[in-house]
């Protein structure tokens, strides 16, 4: 590898995606493109028979985010499915995007994890080249562009829907952004959930959400909503005390991105179960 220098006319600026394009490193991304081609061909051949003719693809599931007084909490279960099979019990779907933001993914796991890696590199690259960080809004837009770049794959069934949340250092509050497949970016006021168990999770949050939740209360609500989602949705994993696998729960506030330790999350689950059994003494409704 030689030093990547560019004449001033074709300098990629602070964009890492542009840089990859210029240095012809999109070969690195070739597997994704090849997959899209393959899917397109397979789709043509089998379109009469099966609407989605994809080879088995690993999918990730429930993601929830909600605001609290000083930031946001983002949580995601750990299960990945391949059709009706559990592909992984302990994949992670919540990642730090940079110090003051988090990105969570649902959809085709392979493409999603790759998107996160590119997004993380992009934010850090911008910060280092420019010497200043992007605004939270700028980061959210960047992610939108990456989602829309994935549209071709999404049309073939490899849909990746990220959820972006972070602490806005200028407005001094937590903000949540959601996306559609075309890269459309929408800001949520208080909370949101995506993935196959998203509806159950969102309803759970909706029933108990109020302004000015504390960090601990917000974490409790997020964990509770994942519990409810796992209760209703087969593709969402619940707590697994036997293997010590718990959802990834992270908060982003003025102190930055912090992931909760597993024992802490386990403690929240213990509280939830305790409250449940006290409330439903006559037997848990089903």
């Amino acid at each position, binding site marked *: *590898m030689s*030093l*990547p220098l560019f004449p001033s006319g074709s300098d990629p600026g602070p964009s890492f995606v542009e*840089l*990859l394009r210029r240095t012809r490193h999109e070969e690195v991304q070739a597997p994704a493109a090849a997959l899209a081609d393959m899917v397109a061909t397979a789709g043509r051949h089998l379109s009469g028979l099966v609407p989605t003719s994809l080879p088995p693809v690993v999918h990730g599931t429930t993601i929830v985010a909600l605001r609290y007084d000083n930031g946001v909490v983002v949580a995601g279960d750990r299960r990945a499915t391949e059709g009706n099979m559990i592909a992984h019990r302990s994949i992670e779907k919540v990642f730090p995007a940079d110090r003051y933001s988090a990105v969570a993914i649902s959809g085709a796991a392979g493409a999603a994890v790759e998107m996160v*890696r590119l997004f993380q590199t992009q934010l850090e*690259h911008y910060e*280092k080249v420019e*010497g200043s960080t992007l605004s939270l809004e700028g980061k959210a837009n960047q992610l939108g562009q990456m989602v829309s770049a994935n549209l071709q794959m999404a049309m073939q069934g490899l849909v990746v829907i990220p959820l972006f949340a972070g602490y806005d250092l200028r407005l001094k509050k937590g903000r949540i952004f959601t996306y559609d497949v075309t890269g459309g970016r929408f800001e949520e006021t208080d909370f949101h959930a995506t993935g196959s168990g998203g509806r159950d999770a969102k309803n759970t949050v909706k029933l108990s959400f109020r302004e000015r939740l504390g960090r601990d209360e917000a974490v409790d609500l997020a964990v509770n909503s994942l519990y409810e989602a796992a209760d209703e949705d087969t593709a969402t994993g619940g707590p697994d005390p036997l293997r010590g696998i718990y959802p990834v729960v992270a908060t982003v506030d003025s102190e930055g991105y912090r992931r909760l330790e597993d024992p802490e999350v386990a403690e929240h689950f213990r509280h939830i179960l305790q409250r449940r059994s006290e409330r439903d003494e006559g037997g848990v409704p089903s």
Partner: protein
Amino acid sequence: MTMPYYVAPEQVMKDRAEYAQKGIARGRALVGTTYDNGVLIVAENPSSTLHKISEIYDRVAFAGVGRYNEFDQLRVAGVRHADTKGYAYSREDVDARSLANVYAQYLGQVFTHEMKPLEVEILVAELDPVGTAHQLFHIAYDGTVSDEQRFTVLGGEADAITQRMSARFRQGWTLAEAVAASVASLSGPARKLRPTDLEAAVLEHGPWRRCFRRVDADELAELIARGEAAEPAAGSPVEKETHPELGTDENGEGAPGHA
């Protein structure tokens, strides 16, 4: 048809080296040194926005002296090189040695093939992820690379500053001691640099993946005070070791060594 004048290659190289050295000597100096928890870089730089010291990657930092636009271009190229490599392979595959080599090749090529050599000297520092074998790669305008594990000085008056530094250097000193000694060495006997005249940054072991951290003027002032208070006693001067020069002209008349 007019014949071009013949100029001996030695003369051409000598002229270019002189030109580059002059440019670099006009700039203010910079010291990079290792300490008990990482690497410290201190530069004389009155500007608080135009940085001489920057982050390249998780454990790699960059510093340059000389013409700002030239070393800043090298800095950005370094960030690009490191980020592409880390993205294509893995974060831990990014190291200072290969980056230093890439810089050296480029500087060497410009020095021999272009009209004007780059008037810069750069430092690529790397924090050892596990031990204390931190690396300081010093790359001169002609592509000469030398590696140091103790300290290195770049820029104008490098020789005098190196002397002052080697009189005070101690292996495994604290950050405060390293800061105080670096600042004193940069200042020299005749003047006293204030924290606002300086720019400092460290690569340190900490909870974060990215080990680069800027030291602001307030912290710098406090470190200098603490370092000066802790001063002397233990400080037995270490003799300056000679380190192998890995570049082109090793010795010889008018060899372009350090400016």
